[in-house]
Structure formats: C-alpha cells, structure tokens
C-alpha cells in the first residue's frame, strides 16, 4: 500500500525528499532506479494524451458515442429526458436530504444536510466526465442542433429547482418521493413513448400509493378495509390506463436505442427489475416450503455457475423456445431479460447473506410481540438486512453496469459497441483504436466510481444510528 506522505509543518522540501525518498541506502537506490523509468512512462503517456493521440476520433463521433444509432431527428427526446431526469434527481435529493436532516435533529445527532454542490463534489468523477464531453463538444459539429452547454446548464438549473423540495414541510416527504418516481417514469417515457401499454410503471407506483393512503381507518372490519384499499388502487390504475390510452403517443422503443444512452438504460432497467426478483428468490430460498426452496436454490446455483456471456448467447437462441409461439423478442429485450435474470441470482445470495447476519433475537422480539411473519420480515428483518448489504449490493450493480458492455459481443451497439461503427468509417478504419477505448473506459469508470462513492455515503448515513 502506498499513500502520499504529507509535508509535516516546519519541514523543508529537501527534508521531505530525504525522509521519503532517501531514508536509507536501499530505498535511495530504488528511487534512483525507478524514478527515470516512471518519469519516462509518464512522459510517453502525457505525450500520447496531448500530442500524438488522435482524439478527433472521439471528438467528431461524440454524438455517436452518446446516442449511437438513435434516430437523429428524435434527439429532442433524449435532451428532454436528460432535463426531466435532472429535475427528478433534484427533487429526490432534496427530499432525501430533508428527511435525513429531520431524523438527525429528532435523535439529537450531528446534522448532515446535503446540497446540490455537495452531491456534485461527491460525484466528481461524473462532473469530470461531463466536463470532458463539453470540451470535446466545443468542436463537434456533427448532428448537434442543440448546444450541449445549454443542456448541461439547463439540467443544473432544473436540478436546483427540484432540490427546493427540501423546503416542503415534513408531511409532504412522501409526496417528494412520489414526484421523484413520477418524473423518473415520465423521463423514461419521453423517449420510449406514452403508448397504451405504458401505464404499467406509474400504475404500480400510484396503485400502491392509493392502497396505502386510502382513508379507511374509520372502518373497523379488517376485510372491509382491505376491500376499500383495493378499490382505491383499482380506481387509480384504471384512471391511469384511460389517460395513457387517450394520449397514446408512441416514442422510440429500446430496440432503436444505442450508445451510452443504451448502456445506462439497460443497466438501470436490469437493476430495477433484478432487485425485487432477487429479494423474492432470497426469501424463497429460506422458505419452509421445500418445493419453493429447492426451486430457488437450483435457479440461483445454475445461474451463478454459468458465465454471463454464455447466458447472453443462450438468450439470443433459446429464449425463443420458452416464450409463446409468435412472440417476437428483439435482441435488446432478450439481453435485458438475461441481465435481469442473471443479476437476480447474485442479488438473492447477497440478500440471503444479509438475512443470515441478523441476530435471531430480532425475529424473536417480533414474535414475542405477537407480530405475524410478514410484518416481522417487512418491518424488522428486511430493513436491517438490506442496510447491512448495501456495499455488496451496489458492488453487484456496478458489475451489472460494466457487464452490459458484453452486449457489444452479441451485436448490440451500446457504449462499447459503438466503436464498431466508428472504426468502420474511412477516416478511422485502422487508427485511433486506443483513443476510443480510453474514452469508453473513462466513461465506465466515471459512472462506476460515482456509484461506489454514493454507496459509501449511504452506508455511513444508514449506520449512523447503530
């Protein structure tokens, strides 16, 4: 392990060099041998970066990297998506920081109140990546009819406006979350379209909301409450279906997505779908019903024993036999299905680890209070188990994000796959391979690193009360 030694107060530069580079004869010798080698490689690297590197391969193809083969005249949808996501991000951040502020104040803990600036500092890798994009964008004149600086500026302004949700009174926290989720779905559907079948995500969100906030407390009979809750949920869901049926404005389905946009979306969709599936698998594996337990175990162990790339190929050929005849599944749909099913098995094992790490006294305390098994699981066990496995879980999400690059092998043009188009261009047929690769690597790293930082913060915040 190396770590940079700080210059101690009252220490001159010469002393620092002597103490850290030449403390004794063999360290001094190592320094003398290694220093020229390191300097030489640094020189070569810098020369490549600033002199010999053909970065125009990235520069002129920036739009291609971002959106790939996505129809250029529909680019407004992507821009709108960025802006709506930025707003949703702001609202979520504001609500979250206000909620943790409330908790800290109540419990008399040190107050940690976030802000947009603080968040951007934490996610500096993403900020740096966007800065790099903007740097390249200054000279990219291919297919850009909207100034990228305006998009980034607009996104920041919208995030800031959304962040004002932290001023909501406490009673509106859940509204803040509801707004966040609503705008995430709308942002997604600005691209994918508000067609007739698009009611499902908002239907689930608002159905559950209606079920849980339906004012049924004045009725004593438990069955009546459940019935009324279900009626409320059904009304909301049918209303949403009617709205979507009335709007029915098709967009660009994911079969036409590509580039970094596809990479981010595929990862996000697979994460959102794999998490609940993995949770159910973990619970099934601990079930007392042998059939359920065996099925979950077999599924998890089979999936974990097969490489993802194999499953992706199998998905392209075999999934067709499983689904009803006549169903046409695009390559991207199959890939998303395989990535989801794959990640779910890993998430299940992570969650199971979390469940096992809990003291059995927690379960007993719940039982002794007369709670039924479902509320014990939901209110006592899962919140603690999931908190305990945040680092492992985010690690899995980061793997999933990076593994999405395997889609380029099954001829899907995501972030890495876009290079195939670029190097098919006459200008870059046999040059600048390293430049495009490095750019792609920086892109993956920027997002993965931001996720990792976020997981560390989440872990710290949720453990603050332990």
């Amino acid at each position, binding site marked *: 392990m190396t770590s940079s030694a700080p210059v101690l107060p009252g220490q001159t530069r010469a002393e620092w060099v002597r103490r850290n580079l030449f403390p004794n004869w063999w360290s001094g010798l190592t320094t003398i041998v290694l220093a020229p080698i390191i300097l030489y490689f640094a020189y070569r690297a810098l020369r490549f970066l600033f002199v010999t590197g053909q970065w125009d391969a990235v520069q002129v193809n920036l739009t291609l990297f971002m959106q790939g083969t996505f129809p250029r005249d529909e680019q407004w949808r992507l821009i709108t998506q960025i802006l709506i996501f930025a707003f949703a991000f702001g609202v979520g951040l504001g609500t979250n920081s206000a909620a943790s502020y409330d908790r800290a104040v109540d419990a008399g803990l040190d107050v940690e109140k976030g802000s947009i600036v603080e968040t951007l500092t934490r996610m500096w890798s993403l900020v740096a990546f966007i800065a790099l994009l903007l740097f390249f964008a200054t000279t990219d004149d291919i297919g850009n009819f909207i100034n990228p600086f305006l998009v980034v500026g607009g996104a920041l302004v919208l995030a800031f406006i959304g962040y004002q949700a932290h001023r909501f009174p406490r009673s509106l926290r859940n509204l803040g979350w509801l707004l966040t989720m609503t705008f995430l779905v709308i942002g997604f559907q600005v691209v994918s379209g508000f067609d007739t079948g698009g009611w499902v995500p908002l239907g689930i969100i608002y159905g559950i909301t209606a079920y849980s906030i339906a004012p049924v407390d004045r009725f004593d009979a438990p069955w009546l409450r459940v019935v009324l809750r279900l009626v409320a949920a059904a009304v909301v869901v049918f209303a949403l279906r009617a709205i979507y049926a009335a709007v029915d404005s098709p967009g660009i389905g994911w079969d036409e997505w590509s580039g970094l946009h596809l990479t981010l979306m595929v990862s996000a969709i697979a994460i959102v779908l794999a998490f609940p599936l993995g949770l159910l698998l973990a619970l099934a594996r601990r079930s007392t019903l042998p059939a359920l337990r065996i099925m979950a175990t077999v599924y998890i162990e089979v999936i974990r024993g097969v490489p993802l790339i194999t499953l992706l190929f199998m998905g392209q050929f075999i999934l067709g036999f499983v689904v009803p005849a006549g169903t046409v599944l695009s390559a991207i749909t199959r890939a998303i299905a395989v990535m989801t099913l794959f990640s779910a098995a890993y998430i299940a094992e992570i969650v199971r680890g979390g469940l096992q790490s809990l003291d059995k*006294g927690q379960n*007993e305390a719940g039982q*002794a*209070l*007369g*709670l*039924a098994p479902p*509320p014990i699981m939901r209110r*006592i066990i899962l919140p*603690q188990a999931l908190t305990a496995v945040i680092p492992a879980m985010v690690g899995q999400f980061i793997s999933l994000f990076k593994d999405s690059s395997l889609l380029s092998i099954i001829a899907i043009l995501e972030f890495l796959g876009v290079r195939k188009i670029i190097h098919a261009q006459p200008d870059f047929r046999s040059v600048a391979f390293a430049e495009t690769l490095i750019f792609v690597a920086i892109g993956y790293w920027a997002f993965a690193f931001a996720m990792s930082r976020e997981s560390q913060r989440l872990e710290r915040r949720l453990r603050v009360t332990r």
Partner: protein
Amino acid sequence: MTTEQNPQSYSDATQAKGEAVIELTDVDKFFGDFQALSDINMNVGSQEVIVVIGPSGSGKSTLIRCINRLEKHDRGSIVVGGIELSEDIKNIQEIRRETGMVFQSFNLFPHLTVIDNITLAPRQVRHEAKDEAEESAMQLLERVGIPEQARKYPGQLSGGQQQRVAIARSLAMKPKVMLFDEPTSALDPEMIKEVLDVMIELAEGGMTMIVVTHEMGFARAVADRVVFMADGEIVEVGTPEHFFTNPEEERTKLFLSQIL
C-alpha cells in the same frame, strides 16, 4: 439426577392462589437427545409474581420461552389465559399478544427510534392509529422514566435505558402476563437498579410476572413464590421466606450456598 419430589413442599406451594393464568402440565422439552425440561408442572395465578432461579443450563429460560412458543414443547400442555398452545399459528399469536417478553439482550429494533420500537406492534397488530399509539407509547415512557429519549435510536441509549424501553415496548401490547428472561444479566452493575425499580413498580401494580433472574434481592422483595430449577426439573417451590431461610432440598441448599 433424581426424579422424586418432596410431596410436602410441592403440594402447598405449587398451586396458585387465585385463578390460574398460566398452567403447565407434565411439560417435557428436548433439544435433540438432551432433555431441557422434564415433567414440569406449574400454575401461575393472576397478579402473582414468580421468580425462577437455578444454575445455568437448568432450563429456566427454556421454560419461559415455551410459554410464548419461542420454543416448542414436546409433551404436556401449556395453557395461557385459557388458551392452550397448539400448532395453530393464530392461536400462538393470540397467546403472544397476551404475554409480553423482556430479553436478556434487550432485542430492541436498532433501525427504529424508541417511539417506533414501542408503537410498531400496536400499529401492526391492533391497527391503532399513529397518534393514538404514540400517545400511549409516551405514557409508557413516562412510566419507565425516559420520555425525553422518545426520538432517539436504541444505540444512543445506555443499557439500562434500553431495557426500560424494551419493557415499555412489551407493555404497549397490554399483556396479561410479563415474562422476563434474565433482564439484568447483560447490564452494568450501576444500571441494574433502574430496571429492577421498574419491574418492582410493575409487580406492585398487579402485573402477573414470571422472572428468570439471579437478583436474589428482587426475589426476596417482590416474589410471591420462588421456583428453583436444576437439570430441567423443578426441584423446589416456596415462598421467598421459606425458600431463603429454610430450603428443604439438598440441591437448593448447595445452590444457595454458592451464590449467597
């Protein structure tokens, strides 16, 4: 290991004074081949305070854990508040709602604030409204002497405070019987008194209690009857006075000589 019992001390002291709230008849419990409880017969009357003592591994904890089915007994019958424990989960949950339990290691829910720890069961099980549940929770916190800690997390409290929260959490379900499983064993010495004081107050308020403990002072002061267990059997039952001044069984004498 002897199975014979002294009929005299048994007959006058095993029977509860009033109407029995808990009746254990011929209860056996095995962990694999190991017999943790053998032929337990015991009645607990309404408002009675029973203190169970005995060397470690004697089955004291197992005994009270069988009463609310945290452990399943293998033979015999256990009746709580007129309901016999059976396999039926509804029946088990009904009994658990009638019996509060306080654990040696508190077992508070670390992810919930004190007040949420207390209101969880009333809201989930009895569907009490939030305000209503929090109001009764605050009254309970007043009673155990820590209302100012309501919005804190268990991890921020001392052991004694945590155990008092655990008592309040059990009381929130308005149980007819309270089971205490070595409630002060995990506490630093200076915190034992604050928990015992709450328990004494509870006993004086007429709560039916079974307390597994090593606090002989508590047994002397509060117990209606003291039960001595060894090797999974009830060896001797008697009033505290009888028990501490004039024990009859050899094993009881040996145990008392070791701890007093």
